[in-house]
């Protein structure tokens, strides 16, 4: 191959690679366009104030109401329970593995915990409905067979390794000089980890927490299976609820013809979900970048 044709080949390959890479932007554009198109169609028939502030969600009934708030509170309730499980225990585990446990323990426990994040969510749904709920019913009075509590807890177990591994990475990146300084001043391990390492890793830890929150909001199968698919404006974790994600799947399971208002509701709900998770992911990325700059 002479020098000229070689240059041509190189050029073509580079263009082809660039095309693949920029194609990923089309995916984002596709998501936004599809959601926007159907959502606008939906909002032509239902005023946006009714959608965002209405308190009754019955698009599949004869008497239709399109207030998304019950789905929003359902999502928030289940995610809040998940976060209440995942944040404290994830942080404690991260502190324990990074500051207390011996290196071999850390090296075995971490990948085993990460197995939790690799289990398909439909399996967690089974676990929540047929193992955790009966267990909780023995303890919590008035707990219905479908409820927000059990899927919330199981969801917390699922995102726990995300919190613990990312927080651990953040603590690991804190320079050892800071720890040594604390010990030199007579600090115990507890004082060093809680008052020096954790604050120093704070932006990294908050990035992990926010990412976990976005994962909880977008989680579908666990709440679909174990929370009961009943949109209800409540903060009582013992009764059946429905989340935004579960509603989308519930409609997809039925035979809803394209172009109808019911069909469009799932895109409108999807749009809301996309905006929430997108904002959370942006914040999380921004925090992580900032953290990287601090200890670069």
């Amino acid at each position: 191959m002479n020098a000229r044709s070689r240059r041509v080949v190189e050029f073509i390959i580079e263009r082809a690679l660039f095309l693949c890479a920029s194609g990923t932007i089309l995916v984002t554009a596709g998501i936004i366009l599809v959601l926007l198109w159907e959502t606008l169609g939906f909002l032509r028939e239902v005023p946006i104030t009714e959608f965002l502030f209405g308190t009754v969600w019955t698009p599949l009934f004869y008497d239709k109401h399109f207030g998304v708030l019950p789905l929003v509170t359902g999502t928030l309730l289940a995610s809040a329970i998940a976060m209440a499980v995942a944040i404290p225990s994830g942080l404690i585990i991260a502190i324990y593995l990074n500051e207390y446990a011996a290196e071999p323990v850390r090296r075995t426990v971490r990948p085993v915990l990460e197995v939790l994040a690799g289990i398909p969510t439909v399996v967690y749904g089974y676990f929540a409905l047929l193992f955790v709920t009966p267990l909780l019913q023995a303890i919590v009075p008035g707990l219905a067979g479908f409820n927000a509590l059990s899927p919330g807890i199981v969801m917390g177990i699922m995102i726990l390794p995300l919190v613990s591994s990312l927080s651990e990475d953040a603590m690991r990146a804190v320079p050892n000089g800071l720890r040594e300084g604390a010990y030199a001043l007579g600090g115990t391990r507890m004082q060093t980890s809680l008052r020096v390492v954790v604050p120093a890793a704070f932006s990294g830890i908050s990035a992990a927490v926010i990412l976990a929150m976005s994962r909880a909001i977008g989680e579908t199968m666990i709440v679909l299976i174990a929370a009961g698919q009943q949109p209800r404006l409540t903060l009582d974790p013992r009764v059946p609820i429905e989340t935004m994600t579960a509603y989308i799947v519930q409609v997809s399971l039925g035979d809803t013809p394209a172009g109808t208002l019911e069909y469009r509701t799932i895109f409108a709900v999807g749009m809301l979900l996309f905006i929430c998770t997108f904002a959370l992911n942006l914040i999380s990325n921004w925090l992580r970048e900032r953290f990287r700059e601090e200890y670069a």
Partner: protein
Amino acid sequence: MWAKRFGDRLLASFGFLVTLLALIALGALIYDVVRDGMARLSWDFITSYPSRRAEEAGILAALAGSMFVISLTALMAVPVGIASAIYLEEYGGRGRISRLIEINISNLAGVPSIIYGLLGLGLFVRLMGMDRSVLAGASTLALLALPVIVLATREALRAVPKSLREASYALGATKWQTTWHQVLPAALPGVLTGVILALSRSIGETAPLITIGALTYVPFMPNSIWSPFTVLPIQIFNWVSRPQAAFAENAAAGIVVLLGFLIVMNAAAIALRDRFQRHL
């Protein structure tokens, strides 16, 4: 002094306890599923079509669907994912477009899978008229797996030492020759690990495939990319949502098969990673 030590001990034992609890949760999950499902697990279960009667139902169609969909997903997502990663890591530089693509990919990795389902429904099923076919399902999962493959491949490429590239350039190789003959082979185990993990995540996906309209009752084998299909997680979901205990047993047996698959795939990924670490 005593109080200080006490606090230290307390935090250490509390941390140990919580870690243990998390591990117990994992153990309880696996124990629960295996206990419920083992009785139903048999060769007949794997080679039968679904049925109205729980004792006769099997996972043949779902298993075949899962294999078919995931192979097609790999065929679409892996080449594009690796090519994108090569561009960003080896060619992209620090330009504004590369930066935009980078941010975009890390955001895509955080988009909930159900949103990909809506994209697949609007784009592949309706707009492109693929209907509820294997192709539509695989295309949706390919988009879902793409950002994960890109991120993992970049990580593997980054681990290849600079000196390897410089030596290749010094011998007069072009950029692509260097990438193809030196960098990529060195990064291959890492790339494969990432690809396997991304695909094993896609095998377990349920929600996006239900959203594009994959069927829940399929008593036949998918025979072309245009045929309707179901996958193992959807079959499991279908059985879990029935009230009869016999179907719950079927679901548990299906879960055991699904987890078995994932264990094999993840073991392969770990074995590859170990080889990778020894070589560099």
